[in-house]
């Protein structure tokens, strides 16, 4: 039985566990129908030209994990950004772990999707936002929607901001030989609200994990959302991250994606601008080796005038890794005075590594400034020589140059401890010891 059939039959079992009379379940049923007709995307589809899911479909994933064993905080501490105090929403094999988490209802809601879906006091918000920006026909998104039950729920009311950043951590224990997870997150920042979120997926063993995650983010007028994705998983973990963002006037949403590890990562990042003077920022650093594969698929839809978008993705590819960047900017006819920038720079450091990039512009308005730049190249020989001539060994010198190449993406990271952490991971990845802190 292939994965699609398995998922379809699991849906019947899934229905036993949820309230089928809930309006949300109608959305689920609709979604599974769509998935049934579409199936998993193939390389024949333009959007999946460079990423194949064939390998994943052959694995016999367990869809409903068994009750997992408890984890000690000290064993997993390193996966948290533990230097600072944060709210934490932790899932172990897809199941919420209350003793590792720290949630709140103090002025803001930082809690679980399952309680938001089930408790009557959230009904109105769920009706207003749930599955409202997520695609209703993209097959992996609809697959997630069909099984949507658990994940993080963050609601920041008007002019509020949580006291500290929020961490969302998904841990896979490896109790199952192969596990499929489908977390569903909903982040709402009402007018003038502000929130910072760090998300991480981590597999604790070499057992295979396949995560198909969907996150919906709503930013109200003047709201400010910072979302950091840390993807530094082990070689048997695959992640498909579907993020949908809806922005209103004057809002700022910044998503930083740090992809350093994992077997197959696909980031579908979609921005929809529904207001004026919006700022959308998408940044990413990708450093890969071995046989890793990362595919960044971004969309920024400028639907209103006077908005901006900034994209900057940097990639360093070694080993037999493959990197894909597919950035699409659509500017509607009425979206005059749009400023859209897109930049994608790549360095290949191995003969077996591969980069495929496709920065697209689709522009229907005339009074716009849109540009994209894309490069694939190597380290500057002269810069290398300069460093070497000053007594820095070649390996360190090239590490230093790559570090500098990737580093400027970090400028817009607003949590200093996170910046330091990412810096360390980058330095570690590149095998350089930086004798200074940034």
């Amino acid at each position, binding site marked *: 039985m292939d994965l699609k059939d398995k998922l379809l039959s699991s849906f019947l079992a899934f229905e036993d566990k949820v309230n089928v009379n809930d309006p949300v379940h109608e959305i689920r049923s609709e979604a599974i129908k769509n998935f049934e007709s579409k199936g998993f995307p193939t390389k024949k589809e*333009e959007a999946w030209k460079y990423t194949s899911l064939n390998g994943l479909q052959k694995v016999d994933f367990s869809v409903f994990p068994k009750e997992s064993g408890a984890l000690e905080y000290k064993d997993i501490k390193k996966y948290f950004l533990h230097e600072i105090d944060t709210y934490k929403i932790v899932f172990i094999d897809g199941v919420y772990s209350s003793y590792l988490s720290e949630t709140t209802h103090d002025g803001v809601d930082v809690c679980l999707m399952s309680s938001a879906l089930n408790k009557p006091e959230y009904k109105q918000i769920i009706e207003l936002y749930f599955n409202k920006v997520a695609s209703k026909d993209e097959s992996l998104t609809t697959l997630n929607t069909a099984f949507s039950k658990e994940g993080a729920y963050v609601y920041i009311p008007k002019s509020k901001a949580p006291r500290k950043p929020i961490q969302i951590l998904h841990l896979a224990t490896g109790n199952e030989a192969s596990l499929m997870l489908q977390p569903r997150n909903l982040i709402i920042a009402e007018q003038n609200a502000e929130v910072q979120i760090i998300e991480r997926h981590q597999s604790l063993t070499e057992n295979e994990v396949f995560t198909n995650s969907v996150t919906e983010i709503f930013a109200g007028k003047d709201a400010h959302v910072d979302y950091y994705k840390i993807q530094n998983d082990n070689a048997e973990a695959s992640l498909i991250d579907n993020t949908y963002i809806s922005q209103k006037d004057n809002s700022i949403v910044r998503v930083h994606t740090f992809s350093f590890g994992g077997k197959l990562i696909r980031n579908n990042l979609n921005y929809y601008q529904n207001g004026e003077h919006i700022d959308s920022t998408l940044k990413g650093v990708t450093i890969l080796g071995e046989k890793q594969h990362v595919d960044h698929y971004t969309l920024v839809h400028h639907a209103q005038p006077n908005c901006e978008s900034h994209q900057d993705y940097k990639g360093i590819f070694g080993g037999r890794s493959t990197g894909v960047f597919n950035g699409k900017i659509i500017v509607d*006819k009425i979206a*005059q005075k749009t400023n859209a920038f897109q930049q994608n720079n*790549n360095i*290949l*450091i*191995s*003969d*077996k*590594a*591969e*980069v*495929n*990039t*496709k*920065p*697209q*512009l*689709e*522009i*229907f*308005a*005339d*009074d*716009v*400034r*849109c*540009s*994209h*730049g*894309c*490069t*694939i*190249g*190597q380290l500057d020989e002269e810069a290398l020589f300069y460093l070497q001539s000053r007594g820095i060994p070649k390996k360190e010198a090239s590490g230093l140059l790559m570090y500098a190449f990737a580093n400027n993406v970090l400028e817009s990271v607003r949590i200093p401890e996170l910046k330091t952490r990412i810096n360390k991971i980058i330095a570690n990845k590149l095998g350089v010891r930086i004798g200074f802190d940034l």
Partner: protein
Amino acid sequence: MAYTEEELKKELETKEYEYGFYTDIESDTLPKGLNEDIVIAISKKKGEPQWMTDWRLDAFRIWKDMEEPEWPNVTYEKPDFQNISYYSAPNKKPKYNSLDEVDPELLETFKKLGISIDEQKKLAGVAVDIVMDSVSVATTFKKTLAEKGIIFCSISEAIQEHPELVKKYLGTVVPKKDNFYAALNSAVFSDGSFCYIPKGVRCPMELSTYFRINEAGTGQFERTLVIADEESYVSYLEGCTAPMRDENQLHAAVVELIAMDDAEIKYSTVQNWFPGDKNGKGGVFNFVTKRGLCEKNAKISWTQVETGSAVTWKYPSCVLKGNNSIGEFYSIAVTNNFQQADTGTKMIHLGKNTKSTIISKGISAGKSQNSYRGLVKVNSRAENARNFSQCDSLLMGNECGAHTFPYIEASNKSAQIEHEATTSKIGEDQIFYCNQRGIDTEKAIALIVNGFSKEVLNKLPMEFAVEAQKLLEISLEGSVG
């Protein structure tokens, strides 16, 4: 009095196709439809040898099983392939020795087009192989070329007289099964040009062919094969205008270029097929496959100015097979009214130290859609490959669209690839600056567009550059940014 935007728009809209006229020459036309019998009939009519007939039939069988591609960013009513006549030739086809023998009506046509043959013969120094309705009717300067050992003739003639060359190279760069329209062309191509430059010869003149579609309901399937032997050089020009027609006409040409070691081919196109009227009615469908193969140290340079056709779908490409080979692509694509263009290039780097340059300028006005689609592929063995791409789009008016779809695939670490794209409109301050200095708005736009396209216009041979500038003016004057 100031020239208002409205007036400009109006003038642009009412600017009818200047070269729209129809020459009444009796044609020898096959019945509509396509099947094996028609393919055999075409081959027979042209008196082709058996191997050619078999080649066509093979292509037809491949085509039958193919589907029309859907991926281009264009929408159009698909042609009904059974409602097209696949062969039409002017019925008198003697070989002319002098202009006096040429059908006077045909001469009149050329006069209207401004390409007086005798004038060109004397002044321009251009050998013109005029293709009128698919069959070559006049070849000039053949003698001069023959002295150098250059073969420049229609492809039908080449099949008869140089079968060894045609057999060896036809379909090697664009295989029969390459794509839907290439397969169709391989099965039914009516005529085209053939050019062979021998070893070490520098072709003393620009070779040029004028294409015209001239028979209602006739698809034009041209086949061009240019072979530049080692250390040779040739500059080839191709230009076309077509008469006004209500019905959509299909043009599916195939151009194959082969540049052997150290050879250089420069291929320039000015395309001005009938673009349809201002309501988007009629116009030519231009679905062309153009590809060149570069051997060691060879260079192929494509330059194109695309102003016509209702729907354009073409990607002149370079396969950089040999080490140190160079591919270039310079393009200006102008769309107006309801025109749609999906054009660009493919640079396939296979050899070491290969270089490619892509400069693409898209100008969209009216309700047109203009897309750049390009591929830069660096193979894992292509050490030190270098590419630079730049595609700029200029939008005029708020009802048109400009799109960019660049594909960049690198699997060699020594590859160095740069891609830049910008989209903008003509700045009000730029126009204001010109106005202030006494240049009216229309002239200012022409000036700015000319500057915008200059990098490409500069690459055109003299004869073409003038024509191309005229075309840009016709296509765009009056469009206000």
